[in-house]
């Protein structure tokens, strides 16, 4: 079997793993600086990642009013993401890159403006003013792909990267395989940018359908796990993000509905959000989710978002733009028989995921102001980092990662040597599941991870439950050695399941360390139900000689600007 696998060797200045919004922007930045760039992507560059099918919002300040400035924006993020966001890094990965990003969107042919040249702006999720620019981003991903290709990127499509090449001092490339043909890829790079998003398929899905996820179900924490393996520090890993979605379909669209003026109502038709948060329906996401869960627990469900009071033009705008964010949501509403002008839309809480606790910062590889990880040669971009999230920061921060990776690569006068023996050892381990005829299918292992995570590390956690989760996940790791794959598509799913399992363990270890509650159900410790000021900072977790290390990094909010 192994002898039939074809091997390909590539050499490049910058390798980008994951071609979504952040990775694609990183590649463009590196290409514009004349670097040789490879993007390795499990799907196609045109339609991959969280915004494969489109997106409808871009958060920005435009200097039109006192709430519309860099200072006001930073004050806002310090408020909604307190304890997780690093203001200095946010300034670097977003504020300093914003003007350039707005210009770039126009240049690549995906305008943020309406046909009359103005911005359509809405306010949601705790914002002090309408920070969301509502736009038609159905073709943003193909436009970014076109630009990278025009600049000469090499894309390795249908390629799953499973391991980083590490020489003991720095990352010098990555290894992967083709999910259709099985071809083996050795990619030697001076600088490597990981941009594979958050981790989905980690918690039990309320619909029972594991791929019915809010974020892209191809996102299985590859970056976090690969970085962790080479000793890179991770942060904000304890948070289980949840959101509110249409009942039955874990689709984006919440901020569009509440941004346009949609109101949460319960079974009795009562508006209840103000009882839980002073900003009501415009409260931050974690507060909305918590309120929906509590209202259902009180017996006041089902819960709806009611848009029936909106004007005809507002409903028309919603019907048009809901499909920009989730292309198939209008089909879903139509097949469900929902007319937003007449019918309240039933909603539910979504599945949990490993992702940032607010719109503006992430969960994963701990990055500095230059998007560099704690390991040389390794950079992070987008949702898989602790300080980037959402369309706006992935666009700006992704681009910054590309710039910084090139600066680093330029400092290297040679392409580092790779250990041939080590590569062959990793190669054989990658393909092992193909030889296990009586093994376990990935679905069994994944379903078990999801149940363990939801039962013991989900919306209610405590020291005992987290320790039980770790113990069970460790035992499951032994079972995971028996994972089988009958073809290369399944081989991808097997490696994804293993990544999800590792993320689960890291999340539990990090959660144990945060002895408080923060962001509502995103990290609710029943044994420490209060939010405590001394915990305003990040739980940092990494691996050293096979042992897990943890430390607390205090974040400073005394000087916002």
């Amino acid at each position, binding site marked *: 079997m192994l002898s039939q696998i074809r091997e390909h060797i590539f050499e490049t200045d910058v390798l980008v793993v994951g071609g979504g919004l952040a990775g694609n922007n990183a590649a463009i930045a590196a290409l514009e600086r004349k670097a040789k760039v490879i993007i390795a992507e499990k*799907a196609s560059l045109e339609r991959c990642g969280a915004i494969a099918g489109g997106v409808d919002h871009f958060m920005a300040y435009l200097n039109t009013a006192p709430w519309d400035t860099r200072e006001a924006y930073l004050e806002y993020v310090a408020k909604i993401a307190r304890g997780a966001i690093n203001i200095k890094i946010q300034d670097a990965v977003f504020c300093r890159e914003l003007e350039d990003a707005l210009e770039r969107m126009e240049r690549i042919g995906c305008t943020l403006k309406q046909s009359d040249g103005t911005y359509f702006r809405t306010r949601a999720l705790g914002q002090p003013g309408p920070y969301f620019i509502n736009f038609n981003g159905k073709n943003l991903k193909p436009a970014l792909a076109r630009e990278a290709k025009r600049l000469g990127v090499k894309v390795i499509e249908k390629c799953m990267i499973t391991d980083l090449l590490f020489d003991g001092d720095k990352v010098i490339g990555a290894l992967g395989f083709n999910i259709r043909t099985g071809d083996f890829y050795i990619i030697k790079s001076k600088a490597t940018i990981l941009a594979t998003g958050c981790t989905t398929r980690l918690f039990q899905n309320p619909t029972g359908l594991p791929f019915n996820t809010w974020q892209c179900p191809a996102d299985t924490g590859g970056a976090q796990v690969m970085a962790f393996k080479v000793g890179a520090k991770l942060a904000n890993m304890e948070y289980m993000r949840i959101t509110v979605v249409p009942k039955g379909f874990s689709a984006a669209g919440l901020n569009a509905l509440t941004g346009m003026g949609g109101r949460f109502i319960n079974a009795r038709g009562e508006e209840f959000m103000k009882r839980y948060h002073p900003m009501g329906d415009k409260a931050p996401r974690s507060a909305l989710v918590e309120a929906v869960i509590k209202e259902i627990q009180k017996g006041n469900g089902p819960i709806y978002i009611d848009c029936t009071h909106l004007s005809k033009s507002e409903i028309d705008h919603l019907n048009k733009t809901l499909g920009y964010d989730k292309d198939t949501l209008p089909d879903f509403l139509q097949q469900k028989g929902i007319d937003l002008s007449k019918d309240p839309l039933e909603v539910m809480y979504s599945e949990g995921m490993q992702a940032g606790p607010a719109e503006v910062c992430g969960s994963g590889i701990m990055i500095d102001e230059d998007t560099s990880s704690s390991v040389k040669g390794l950079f992070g971009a987008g949702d898989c980092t602790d300080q980037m999230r959402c369309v706006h920061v992935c666009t700006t921060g992704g681009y910054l990662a590309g710039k910084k990776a090139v600066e680093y690569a330029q400092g290297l006068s040679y392409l580092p040597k790779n250990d041939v023996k080590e590569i062959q050892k990793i190669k054989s381990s990658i393909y092992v599941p193909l030889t296990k005829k009586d093994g376990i299918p990935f679905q069994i292992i994944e379903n078990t991870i999801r149940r363990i995570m939801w039962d013991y590390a989900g919306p209610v956690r405590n020291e005992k439950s987290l320790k039980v989760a770790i113990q069970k996940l460790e035992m499951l790791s032994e079972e995971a050695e028996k994972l089988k794959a009958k073809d290369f598509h399944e081989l991808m799913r097997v490696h994804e399941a293993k990544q999800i399992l590792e993320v689960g363990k890291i999340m539990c270890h990090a959660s144990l360390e945060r002895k408080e509650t923060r962001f509502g159900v995103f990290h609710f410790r029943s044994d420490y139900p209060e939010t405590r000021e001394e915990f305003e900072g990040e739980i940092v977790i990494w691996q050293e000689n096979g042992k897990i290390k943890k430390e607390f990094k205090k974040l400073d909010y005394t000087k916002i600007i």
Partner: protein
Amino acid sequence: MPPFIDMNKCSGCSICDRVCPLDVIHFDHEKKSPIVKYPDECWHCGSCRLECPTAAIKIMFSPEMIY
């Protein structure tokens, strides 16, 4: 089966195979037609429909999601 491909409209270009982010649609090169090989792994993102040059794809939600 979430993406429903109308074979009367399908031109056999195989674009849907290439653009599906979840590797759900596989093109059968002998029969020159796409197969929805892993319907359980569909994200319902609409990428296949957005890129289909002959508008041959409909997204059909399962009763498990509608009710």
